[in-house]
């Protein structure tokens, strides 16, 4: 059996701001300020926590990493003998280094790429390899909005072990979020769906006897698709929001939807893709229309975190009764009772959407869930 290949990328400046209360470390001024405040980077420590878990399969894997503080130090300190690739300017690493490292590891055919960092690091990895490589984030930054990260460094390690030792490794897609840094430091959160990365499927019960606790995403989606498609009306526009769920639903109908955009379907045909607000407004004039969206991000947003093209005006025109929410039972359960969220930018529309809404979880399977703004 060949050894599995594991790539490690550590963003050495991620998490620098955390202890100092600075939000994020994008931008040289922030980094300098943080270092002046005596902050020490958190990501190396977190990366090693994850690597320590991987030690128990040391003999079954080969590690590839970037020089010095981008992974070499961390790997060697946890007793691995990594293969070092690429080159950096130590003490002065950049997002481009992260991207180069990811691309090189993709070329090497790594089975899994672990990266320690924050949202910014996730975006860099996404820009480099898209969904071509299976990756997983070790949380090390203060702001983690992207769903590509494990909850703790240790759990990143556990998930990596499971994925690399599984005979049937499964993957799923998770969101990479783009936060407006400047706004964020001013206390305002304006997030946007940036892209999707491929991560190991969270089959957390896989080793256990009473296992198989959750259906794979695919099987559940088939049911949701069947339910939705069975109810779609003729001559009615269906506006599909971004996300893997809506993309997969339409894939069952043989339609290729954009992952990040808002697409429109009429009588089983895609009539517009990746529309902006203006185009969308024009399309729905004088026509019956419905909106199909899913839950974006770990916080449970249904409007306002990646589908801003579906503006307050459009929402008002189409009406709450024509909004279809699709989500898996597991997704709703993972909210632990917190409501679904809307943030359209318009208080009145937020209010209209708040209350309770029906969610389609599959064929003949629904929930009624709270929505708040």
């Amino acid at each position, binding site marked *: 059996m060949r050894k599995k290949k594991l790539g490690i990328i550590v963003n050495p400046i991620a998490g620098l701001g955390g202890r100092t209360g600075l939000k994020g470390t994008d931008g040289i001024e922030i980094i300098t300020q943080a270092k002046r405040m005596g902050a020490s980077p958190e990501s190396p420590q977190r990366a090693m926590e994850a690597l320590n878990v991987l030690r128990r399969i040391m003999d079954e894997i080969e590690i590839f990493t970037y020089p010095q503080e981008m992974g070499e130090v961390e790997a060697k300190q946890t007793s691995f003998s990594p293969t070092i690739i690429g080159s950096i300017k130590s003490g002065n690493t950049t997002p481009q280094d992260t991207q180069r490292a990811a691309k090189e590891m993709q070329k090497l055919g790594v089975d899994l790429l672990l990266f320690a960092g924050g949202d910014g690091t996730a975006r860099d990895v996404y820009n480099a390899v898209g969904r071509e490589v299976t990756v997983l984030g070790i949380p090390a930054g203060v702001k983690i909005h992207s769903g590509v990260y494990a909850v703790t460094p240790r759990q990143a390690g556990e998930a990596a072990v499971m994925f690399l030792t599984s005979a049937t490794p499964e993957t799923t897609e998770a969101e990479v979020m783009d936060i407006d840094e400047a706004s964020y430091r001013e206390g305002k959160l304006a997030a946007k769906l940036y892209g999707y990365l491929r991560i190991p499927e969270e089959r957390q019960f896989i080793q256990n006897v009473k296992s198989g606790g959750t*259906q794979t995403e695919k099987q559940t989606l088939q049911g949701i698709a069947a339910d939705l498609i069975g109810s779609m009306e003729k001559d009615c526009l269906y506006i599909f929001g971004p996300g893997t769920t809506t993309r997969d639903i339409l894939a069952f109908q043989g339609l290729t939807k954009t992952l990040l955009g808002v697409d429109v379907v009429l009588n089983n045909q895609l009539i517009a893709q990746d529309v902006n607000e203006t185009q969308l407004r024009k399309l729905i004039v004088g026509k019956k229309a419905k909106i199909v969206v899913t839950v974006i991000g770990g916080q449970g947003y249904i409007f306002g975190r990646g589908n801003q093209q579906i503006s307050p005006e459009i929402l008002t025109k189409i009406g709450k009764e024509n909004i279809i929410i699709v989500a898996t039972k597991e997704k709703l359960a993972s909210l632990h009772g917190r409501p679904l969220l809307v943030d359209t930018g318009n208080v009145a529309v937020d209010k209209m959407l708040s209350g309770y809404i029906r969610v389609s979880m599959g064929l003949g399977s629904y929930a009624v869930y709270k929505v708040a703004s």
Partner: protein
Amino acid sequence: MSDGEKRVFPYIPNSVPEVKTEMLRQVGAHDEMELYVEIPERLRFKRKLKLPPPILDESSLRNHIETLLEKNNNCKNYLNFLGAGAAEHFVPAVCDEINGRGEFLTAYVGESYADHGKWQAFFEYCSLMGELLDMDVLSCPLYDGGQAAASSIRMAARINGRKEVLIPQTMNPEIASVVKNYLKPDITVKEIGYNKTNGMLDLKDLSAKISSKTTAVLIENPSYLGVLENQAAEVGRMAQEKGAEFIVYVDPISLGVIAPPAQYGATIACGDFHPLGMHLYAGGGQGGFIATGDDMKYITQFKDLMFGIADTTERGEYGFGEVLFDRTSYGSREKGNEFTGTSTGIWAITVAVYLSLMGPKGISETGRTIMQMSQYAAKQMSKIQGVKLTFQSPFFKEFVVNFTKTGKTVAAINKALLKHEIIGGKDLSKEFHELGQSALYCVTETKTMADIQKLVTALKEVV
């Protein structure tokens, strides 16, 4: 017991007042009713339950129950010829020994480490039934044969998406009723008629009713009326031609001598395993089974838990685990296949013991003895004036006897037989008008020649 002295119950250890007081103290409650603070007053039951005063000592309880049970006549002090879905068969002592074992009797859903024995027993139940049925796949047991038949049909409908099922008109009314309710609202039931002379399925009627809408054809073999369906293979061929599943409801104790359905084209076999080691228990010994071949098309459609054999971290060791758990309602709630739950586990273990004891020779000999005794009984009964065998067809353990020519109703005959301490065969006159005053007699390996002679003598007097 004096007033104010609190009663201590042997099954409620912490009813000892001192212990209870101490526990209340530790949870910070002054009064036991404080524990119920979350139940609003308006929902509380205000008075005392009106139940009979408790029988507190075990010997009195025993007397009480025994007195009630002794009011019953049973199939040991009476001679019983009732079958119709619950037949008397021999129960080996080892079967009772094992299903009386406290560990098996009181286990539930423990995982396959501490309860490895239970999981292995179930795996062996499936394996032994698999050999009996000559099929590779079974699930954990179902409530009874009726549920097995009903779920087999739903399995077929999930497989081929069709909504019409054909069942025999002669189907055991107990299980036909279960099936008909269970298939609502989406699957239509059509009945295939039977040949009034030989009691077998009317193939012409089947041909007229089968179509591309048929999800499955289900036959009983032997049929409820006892007859062996000699043309079963032909039925299977007709089903296959139309792309329908061929479901055969069998009597498992016949499979030592009668070919298992898999060998004449059945795609799904089902039935009730009560003959394999259970006492009658007034209908409590029932249990259902469904079996198919090794094909994912079928495997993914079972509704109950399936235990697969697996390796452990120790070489050469067997362990067990759930197979395709998400198939079930335990894994996927309303999206699972139908629903599953606690059913007849202790009986499945009993079946494993029974089949292990019997072995290939035992089960064959049992089948042959049953057929010998039932044929002997039929012959002797048909010699009685006015009594005749309704169908001149091969049967397994049950056969229809016609009493019309005696001028007496079956009801009257059975009432008279009771006075001879004989329980006569099931009265079919209401279910099957066209068969006149007929009864379904069941004769198994539990009946001796002397028993038959006693029946015949009594009948001669009664008719």
